[in-house]
């Protein structure tokens, strides 16, 4: 059996050619078109994921990913499921988050698992770009920088640079990474779940701070409305269409930096198209953990995750945050 790492090193072999150009052709939004349409979010867990180690078992991560994607798409065969998620013949970006350093970054095992399934679903190795702000962030995830187009590529915006043109939406005045604008047809977000001293929680939408040149300008007011405004920039709204959120490990307080004394292992993946619904689900997970250990809510602690409601309002319309409109499937 080919190892996970081989899927980063080699071009796809025996990959299935796609028969259709379908993308996201599954029921992520239930009852689409209806006034009270529900957004689907899958939380897949494996309590035995870590065993006694700080690093999750690679095989179990792949199995967990398969279960999550099967539940989300309704396709038991993971390769068939991925064919319905990604477009054929296009460059697919995997936006990781390595800001927290080696202790709390997107897990290598998850990146490897997705690279493997994408290639089996017909995506050429060179059409996969694993990316983040810079080399340091990628290396924090355990990744190795590679720009060779015959293999899965992995490099940061420090290599690609940023567009000269400034994009403006609300309070967001930023320049986008050329990896997003010029390389990728679609981006899958691979954020890592963390408490955030300013924003409350950082996950799917906050991960987009890593695709712009001056994220520090978006931190005012607890990142509200910065996060929501940023996600309304057309290239982000349109290209970042799916999240495979990493909640294999997390920090429930003191983030976004790594605080090992507040580390815990949800052993979960949070999957969905609706970035607001995904973030709402992730936020609730952090709140439950804080309550479990006797900590105040994020609101009481002075850093509420207000940007999630802002992202759901009519002006931003990025998704839904009403629990009644989120079809949450926990497996």
């Amino acid at each position, binding site marked *: 059996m080919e190892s996970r790492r081989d899927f980063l090193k080699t071009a796809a072999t025996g990959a299935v050619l796609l028969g259709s150009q379908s993308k996201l052709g599954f029921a992520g939004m239930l009852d689409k078109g209806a006034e009270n349409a529900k957004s689907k979010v899958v939380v897949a867990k494996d309590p035995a994921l870590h065993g006694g180690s700080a690093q999750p078992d690679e095989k179990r991560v792949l199995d967990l990913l398969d279960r999550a994607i099967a539940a989300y798409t309704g396709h038991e065969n993971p390769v068939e499921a991925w064919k319905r998620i990604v477009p054929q013949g296009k460059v697919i970006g995997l936006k990781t988050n390595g800001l927290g350093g080696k202790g709390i970054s997107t897990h290598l095992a998850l990146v490897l698992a997705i690279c493997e399934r994408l290639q089996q679903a017909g995506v050429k190795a060179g059409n996969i770009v694993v990316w983040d702000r810079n080399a340091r962030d990628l290396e924090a995830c355990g990744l190795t920088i590679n720009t060779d187009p015959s293999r899965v590529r992995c490099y940061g915006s420090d290599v690609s640079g940023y567009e000269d043109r400034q994009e403006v939406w609300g309070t967001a005045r930023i320049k986008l990474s050329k990896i997003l604008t010029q390389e990728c047809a679609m981006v899958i977000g691979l954020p890592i779940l963390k408490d955030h001293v300013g*924003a409350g929680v*950082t996950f799917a939408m906050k991960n987009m701070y890593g695709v712009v040149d001056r994220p520090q300008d978006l931190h005012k007011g607890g990142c509200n409305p910065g996060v929501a405004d940023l996600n309304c920039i057309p290239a982000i709204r349109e290209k970042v269409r799916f999240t495979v959120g990493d909640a294999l490990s997390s920090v429930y*307080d003191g983030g976004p930096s790594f605080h*090992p004394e*507040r580390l815990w292992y949800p052993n979960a993946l949070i999957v969905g198209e609706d970035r607001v619904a995904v973030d709402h689900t992730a936020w609730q997970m952090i709140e439950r953990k804080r309550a479990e250990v006797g900590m105040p809510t994020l609101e009481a602690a002075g850093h509420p995750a207000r940007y999630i409601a802002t992202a759901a309002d009519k002006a931003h319309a990025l998704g839904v945050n009403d629990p009644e409109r989120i079809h949450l499937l926990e497996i």
Partner: protein
Amino acid sequence: MKFLLDSKWAVMALVLFAALPGTGCKKLKANPFPDSGAVSGWQKTSDTRTFAAKDLWQYIDGDAEQYISAGVVTTSTSDYKYQGKLEAVVDVYTMGDAAGARKILETGQTKDAKQVQLGDAAVAYAQSVIFRKGPYLVRIVAYESTADGPQALVALAHGVEAKL
């Protein structure tokens, strides 16, 4: 290569700060990072990177806000490894004054913090040691938990404290 460049910038930054008399800015008096072998079992595994307050977001993103509001002037960081296995990072925050260092240390404490005799005040956890000394706030964090980790981290912290 990038880290090599970073280290050059760090050295230049330190030289520049040293050449600015009377600015009122606190600065690192000397290199606080122990060399490999200076503390038993510890190897320094990266060049030191230094960030001015305005650039701190590049290193810790949203966390920068709390340090800036407490008056951080510069932040220097370096990676270490204990006995070739346990990886850790040492961050030295140079604050404007001792009150800034105290504010950060006291804000971040949790119930399970263990008091340690180090600098002006210090706390330790299974995978981290945080202490302050004058305007300096030092945070040492290991990436995993090992049986000998806590003792090794405190030893490294003493090595840093002696150089401040």
